[in-house]
């Protein structure tokens, strides 16, 4: 019969996403969540106190050595060695794993896993799922660490920049990284199979690859502020800030990054991410249940026969992603225009 706390722990074993606020180290976030989950687990009612048996020899009137009277009484005494104040709370540590990390400056979706689900987390981390970012930039400044918190190096004018020019630069940058996507996917480009994969948008790098942007789009432009939406693989947040800086350079001006916000990490979107008021065990159990049910629903939809490129789980991830983001269409259009022209 499992203890109540163990049952709560098993309910908590799953993957869930939280919204990391900016200015906080991801380790602090992970530690806070571990503490809150431990509070929830240890709040479960403790098991019944154990008893031990103590035999007492009853005082008989004739305490002669040779007497055959053996009067022993058994008394049930609480075993203090198992008292919670002596042995401590039942759970003192749980393994909370973090997926793709976010640095102190950025904010957004951070995927965490508890207990057994850390294995699934490692699989998710290693599989090539794309991530969505929203980058906020400001034209006219250049700093040493590409963000607005760094030391100012240069100031430039930006009056000559129009929306049209910006979009052209973005398209050029995306195209140059698409080539990397094809080369690292380790698929022979001259086959029919490669073409079909490309059409479906299922070409992904296999193994190690540099950061690749699969999609780059301008959301909002009001000089000097602008907002970009990026879909990328294998990136770091610093790389994204550098991309913004390079955009500024391409436009014969400079730009700094004012905010990096991850809106999607694989199948986890910002819609279901938990804000810091909801970092408690009950909310986490709910979020895990939600993710499980959504996975089951999508698995029921995407039951397809196996293909030879990539593992089944990877393809499923990509299929889910495509369903979520709807970017397979866009990828298809880009790929057919650029990639097979070389």
């Amino acid at each position, binding site marked *: 019969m499992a203890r109540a706390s163990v049952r709560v722990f098993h309910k908590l074993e799953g993957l869930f996403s939280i919204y990391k606020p900016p200015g906080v180290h991801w380790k602090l976030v992970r530690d806070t969540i571990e503490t809150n989950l431990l509070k929830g687990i240890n709040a479960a009612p403790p098991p019944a106190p154990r008893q031990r048996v103590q035999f007492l020899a009853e005082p008989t009137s004739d305490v002669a050595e040779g*007497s055959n009277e053996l009067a022993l009484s058994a008394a049930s005494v609480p075993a203090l060695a198992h008292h919670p104040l*002596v*042995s401590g709370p039942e759970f003192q540590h749980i393994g909370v794993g973090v997926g793709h990390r976010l640095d102190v400056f950025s904010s957004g979706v951070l995927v965490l896993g508890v207990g057994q689900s850390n294995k699934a987390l490692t699989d998710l981390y290693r599989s090539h799922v794309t991530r969505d970012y929203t980058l906020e930039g400001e034209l006219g400044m250049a700093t040493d660490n590409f963000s607005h918190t760094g030391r100012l190096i240069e100031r430039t004018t930006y009056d000559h920049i129009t929306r049209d020019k910006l979009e052209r630069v973005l398209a050029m940058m995306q195209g140059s990284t698409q080539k990397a996507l094809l080369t690292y996917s380790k698929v022979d480009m001259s086959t029919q199979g490669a073409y079909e994969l490309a059409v479906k948008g299922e070409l992904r790098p296999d193994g190690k690859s540099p950061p690749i942007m699969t999609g780059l789009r301008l959301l909002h432009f009001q000089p000097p502020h602008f907002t970009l939406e990026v879909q990328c693989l294998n990136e770091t947040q610093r790389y994204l800030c550098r991309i913004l800086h390079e955009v500024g350079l391409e436009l014969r001006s400079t730009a700094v990054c004012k905010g990096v916000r991850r809106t999607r990490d694989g199948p986890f979107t910002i819609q279901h991410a938990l804000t810091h008021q909801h970092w408690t065990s009950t909310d986490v159990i709910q979020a895990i249940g939600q993710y499980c049910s959504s996975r089951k629903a999508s698995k029921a939809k995407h039951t397809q026969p196996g293909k030879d490129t990539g593992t089944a789980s990877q393809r499923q991830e990509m299929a889910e992603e495509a369903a979520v983001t709807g970017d397979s269409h866009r990828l298809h259009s880009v790929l057919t225009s650029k990639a097979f022209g070389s």
Partner: protein
Amino acid sequence: MYRPPSHVTMSCVFITDIYMALTCIQHCQRCTSLLRSRSVGITTLQYSTDAQHWPAALWNSFIVRVLPSVLQRSPNPSQTRQRWNLGVRSYCESHAKVQPSQTKHGNTDELPETDMVSYQNPVSHQLIDGGMLLKEWQTAFDLDDAPGHSALEEISHEEAVHMNIPAALPPVSISLKDYVNESETLGKLIQLGVQLWKLEQRPNVGSMLLRLDFQTDVTPRLVFLKQLGVDDSRLGYLISHNPFILTESLENLQARVAYLRSKKFSAESVASMVSRAPYLLNFSVKRMDNRLGFYQQQLGLSAQKTRDVVARLPRLLCGSLETVKENLKICKLEMGFRENELQHIVTVIPKVLTANKRKLTQIFDYIHNTMNIPHDLIVKFPQVLNAKYLRIKERHLFLQYLDKAQYDPAKPNYICLDKLVSLPDEAFCTEVASATLKDFELFQKTM
């Protein structure tokens, strides 16, 4: 039947007696009187049904050796007891001589060591160090008497039942679990609600607690605390955080309380100070006097106001003054508060004196430079300096997004800083921002 050679029997008996003596010493400091007190009439057999914490090998090696020698058929149990008394007495006498030559991890230093010292060590120490011990044992024993009863001889059940077997406690352990069933002090501390699992992690505290005698050491101090006015439910918290209050001498404790009363702290405030700052009464009168003088001088407050500040945050008297000096310097120089403004802030929020410097400057920087709130408004609502930076930032940005971020009391639609910071989320959303909680959460995800 197998008869072990006599010297083995001797050493068996010797080891038994050492073992008995060790357990006696561990239980209480009066080893001989314990044995004597166990003599008449009622004998108790302690047989524990829950699993022992020892490794099985140790159990087998010792109990097999110990029990048969204990269960020697003696016509008269008092004779056995006499022999034990003799042995223990001579051991105790020699112990005083052996003590200086022993190394620090001797047999009396028991429990929460991080490494479990093997059982053999204390005994082998004895055998090596006290070459004279062995001789004394031999002289104390009547050599004609001992080999008469073999270690492996069978005895009747009644003798077995009436035989005195003390509790089988390990001499060294990493946890207090092994001793809590037998120790009166530990049992009573658990009833008070003391968190032994936390205390045993601190170095040497576990041994200290075991060595305390409940009647002579713990009870007078508990009575003293109760007389002071500390609530029963707080005693567990107090001892869990400061177990050394049980080793502080009563004269010192009384002197310190008398000093606080002489400084015109009321009885209730002294009781509340002691229950909220567990280490308070461990500090000397001189140190407390020094601190009170410092606060009165530096802050320039009247005696009554200083008393109020210290009564609200008693750990001001416990911690170091360097952090307080640095915080005061930051408030005066970096933040630019004037003397009287600082006095007002400290009387309302004493925590500013012990707050983290980095967080304090971060909050002040955001409030003054980003939210553009002037000094006098901050002084009017000092609780903003005590709030969480993330909370202030999120709420301010939300209000800015809704075009409601107006903190100047002279203009219309003024938002009070107090409400900005101290209201819970729902109340803030409905009253101040006139929005739903869901909207606030959606906004949080855009930050």
